[in-house]
């Protein structure tokens, strides 16, 4: 599990989402299949940011929306591979909040900097470890296929 693989179209799509919601954070789910080299993402699903109280620096996906995304993934033979969100005018590095709120072990968390409304750096972090107590974020590369 060392690379996140996705098409140019999907990569552009998740980055564009952050530009649209700027100066607020965007969020969504990445659906795909696990491979020997890592997740192969084949679908990007936009989600609403429920943190309307603090959308410029927080995001949250409603569990019910997540239940429905999961159901949809299952019907298409896909799994939730991970999630993405944006950091408006902040580095594409996971924050303390991101780490504390990350619970999908084995899944990826993709973060895009949106600088003054333009998508800039996109990084991918794999939440590794066997349990909540041992979890850690591991920076992995994104392989974009044209």
């Amino acid at each position, binding site marked *: 599990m060392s690379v996140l693989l996705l098409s140019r179209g999907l990569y552009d799509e998740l980055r564009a989402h952050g530009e649209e919601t700027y100066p607020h954070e965007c969020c969504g789910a990445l659906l795909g299949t696990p491979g020997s080299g890592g997740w192969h993402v084949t679908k990007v699903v936009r989600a609403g940011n429920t943190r309307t109280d603090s959308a410029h620096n927080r995001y949250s996906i409603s*569990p019910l929306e997540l239940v429905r995304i999961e159901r949809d993934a299952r019907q298409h033979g896909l799994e939730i591979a991970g999630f993405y969100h944006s950091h408006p005018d902040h580095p594409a590095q*996971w924050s303390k909040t991101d780490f504390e709120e990350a619970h999908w072990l084995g*899944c990826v968390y993709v973060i895009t900097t949106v600088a003054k409304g333009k998508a800039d750096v996109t990084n991918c972090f794999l939440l590794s470890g066997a*349990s909540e107590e041992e979890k850690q974020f591991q920076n992995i590369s994104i392989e974009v296929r044209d």
Partner: protein
Amino acid sequence: MKIFIPTPLRPYAGGKDAVELQAPTIAAALDELTQSNPELRKHLFTEQGKVRSFVNLYFNDEDVRYLPQKEETEVSANDTLTIIPSIAGGL
């Protein structure tokens, strides 16, 4: 009833994405699930036996926390229970 297992917990449920079982209540169903898959227990419950705060349980389309009888809600064969860890973060 059918219990849907999220991606991170599938390795602790024999790789399965769903488990079919018979139980009278949600609590009994969770009990049976963790008895047949003991490794799941620590991922779902605290040492005090409470569901971990970041683990959401959805009974069909309802959050179990908001059901009048919560985990003691009776279940039937066609009901589903979805285990879904929360997803949030920020800057």
